[in-house]
């Protein structure tokens, strides 16, 4: 996409979670890059590993999950092998975070102003007075009315949407190069979602901040991201320009997802249904993780795990991506009942 060096490089990342019964592989050989100033969407269903990836980059993996292999490079420096102290210095200055629940992201005991000023003073060399002015500017930019007064309010005095704006301000206060937004709009009303997404886009483009936008909502991703990465069972299955992937998905799982989303304007009676469910981390099949649910699966898919390949401007991990079958494969809306399937009807 660009000649620039990537801001974030994740190489062969493997995250394992040892439990008393077994070893769970939360992320399996994930490779991705985020370029400066772009918005990368990371899409997947629950348990696919999208939040885990974000947490690994920031260094907030919940014990006992840990990085067992691979490297994470941030702004030219390797970060996955840093000590906790070095990591926390990095947070705020290089990486900011926005989480799903605005209520728990803010400390209820301190005013919004205090929290903003603390971040600004810690990561940028400004005096407290300058920091406060900067904080007011930030609040204004995030669209909070009467910022000079609201800066001394406590988090609980803001409504949900306003609080998320404050969280965005807080994330950007340290002028980080990367912001990881994990489901930033899921807990908000639809009409506010649009405002928040818009805000995120505008601010980040303005400051040149890269964003890793994690969401299960493809609509939000479609609207906000430049490139998108699709995750399945801890693996990356497709990554490329959002427009390209949404209009012509190459991986059968991505196709299935597109078909499963109800779209206003389409009048299908049923939605595309991918049979079965995503495997739990302790029952990921050998070969391609998606093969039990894939109508195109053959012996190779069952035996060998597909590697990421460059096909049509997109990186995709599927043995069938170059074959003609993909071109012919259209996910039809259907509903399976065992006897109907037997009777050959669909």
């Amino acid at each position, binding site marked *: 996409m660009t000649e620039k060096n990537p801001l974030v490089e994740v190489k062969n990342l493997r995250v394992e*979670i040892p*439990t*008393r019964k077994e070893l*769970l592989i939360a992320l399996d050989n994930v490779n991705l890059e985020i370029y400066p100033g772009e918005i990368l969407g990371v899409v997947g269903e629950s348990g696919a590993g999208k939040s885990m990836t974000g947490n690994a980059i920031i260094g907030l993996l919940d014990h*006992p999950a840990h990085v067992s292999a691979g490297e994470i490079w941030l702004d030219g420096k390797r970060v996955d092998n840093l000590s906790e102290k070095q990591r926390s210095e990095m947070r705020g200055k290089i990486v900011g975070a926005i989480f799903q629940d605005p209520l728990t992201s803010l400390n209820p005991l301190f005013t919004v102003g205090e929290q903003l000023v603390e971040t600004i003073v810690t990561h940028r060399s400004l005096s407290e007075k300058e920091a406060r002015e900067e904080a007011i500017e930030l609040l204004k930019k995030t669209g909070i009315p009467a910022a000079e007064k609201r800066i001394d309010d406590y988090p609980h005095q803001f409504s949900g949407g306003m609080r998320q704006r404050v969280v965005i301000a807080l994330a950007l206060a340290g002028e980080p190069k990367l912001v990881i937004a994990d489901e930033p709009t899921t807990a908000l009303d639809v009409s506010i979602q649009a405002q928040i997404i818009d805000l995120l886009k505008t601010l980040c483009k303005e400051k040149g901040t890269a964003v890793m936008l994690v969401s299960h909502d493809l609509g939000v991703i479609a609207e906000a991201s430049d490139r998108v990465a699709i995750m399945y069972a801890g693996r990356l299955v497709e990554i490329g320009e959002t427009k390209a992937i949404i209009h012509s998905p190459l991986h059968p799982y991505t196709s299935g997802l597109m078909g499963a989303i109800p779209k206003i304007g389409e009048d299908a009676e049923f939605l595309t249904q991918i049979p079965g469910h995503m495997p739990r981390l302790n029952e990921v099949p050998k070969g391609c993780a998606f093969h039990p649910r894939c109508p195109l699966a053959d012996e190779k898919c069952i035996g060998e795990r597909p590697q990421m390949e460059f096909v049509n401007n997109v990186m995709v991990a599927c043995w069938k991506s170059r074959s003609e079958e993909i071109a012919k494969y259209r996910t039809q809306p259907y509903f399976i009942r065992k006897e109907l399937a037997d009777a050959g009807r669909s």
Partner: protein
Amino acid sequence: MPNTQTDSLLIRLKLQFLRFWDSDLCWRFRHAPVIILSFVIAAGMILSAVFASWIAPYNPFDLASFDLANAFLPPAWEEGGSREFLLGTDDQGRDMLSAILYGLRVSLEIGLSSVFISVVLGISLGLLSGYVGGVTDAVIMRFCDVMLSFPAILLALLIDGVIRVVLPEGTHDEASYAVLIFAISLSGWVKYARTVRGSTLAEKKREYVQAAQVFGVSSLRIMFTHILPNVLGPILVLVTVQIATAIITEATLSFLGVGVPPTTPSLGTLIRIGNEFLFSGEWWITIFPGLTLIVFVLTINLLGDWLRDALNPKLQGQS
């Protein structure tokens, strides 16, 4: 022809047991040596108390079985002691070992019965209070507050005193067990009620309860079949701790002289009796019952503590 009814029941029980054995709780238990030891000791003591009549060499409650001539014999390993009385004898010639075993039994009887009554009363009132809410809740909670303002010992003394006056002379001894159990359970039920009420308030809002309400399940059924199994966790922990407390309360009351009659001494009575002789040199009469009490209460408390941590879902790993 295999009997499918009992077969399937056995299979289900076996599955339940395997499910339990494989659970987080059992795994933690198997990997905590202190707890296993505590469990073994506590279980051992309980079993020996239950089978006291078979294990104990003598029956200390049978007035004919001891002889004043044997009084104040020290433990077997001391000078002057004898193999017949392993832990020595008390001022009446009773064998200490037997007295302790029987005494433990008395203590357990009273402790367990009063805890049982406390639990039943507390859970019922707690469920009612939490589920029905409103005025019922307010009344029950105020009642709890009143009960809490009386210290347990004081309450027991009060009730005991009243009963003594009310009942005709002579029947008091027989009634003392019942009175004791009544008094101790009355002072203990409030904890359960409060805990259950809190959990009930939380569970009441959950959707499986609302679903049952939509189906027209009666409130009583909802309380006991839906909510109760889900609020039982913390109760289990309270129960283990409360058993220890009940036994100590009974021991205290007996020590104060308002507990069980001296003919059927509990551990507390034994400690009291022995206390008088502590400084004249016959230490074994009070020390051994005292040690028994301490060890038992300690193991129960350790188990209770561990259970509370083990059952805490926040501390559990991923399932």
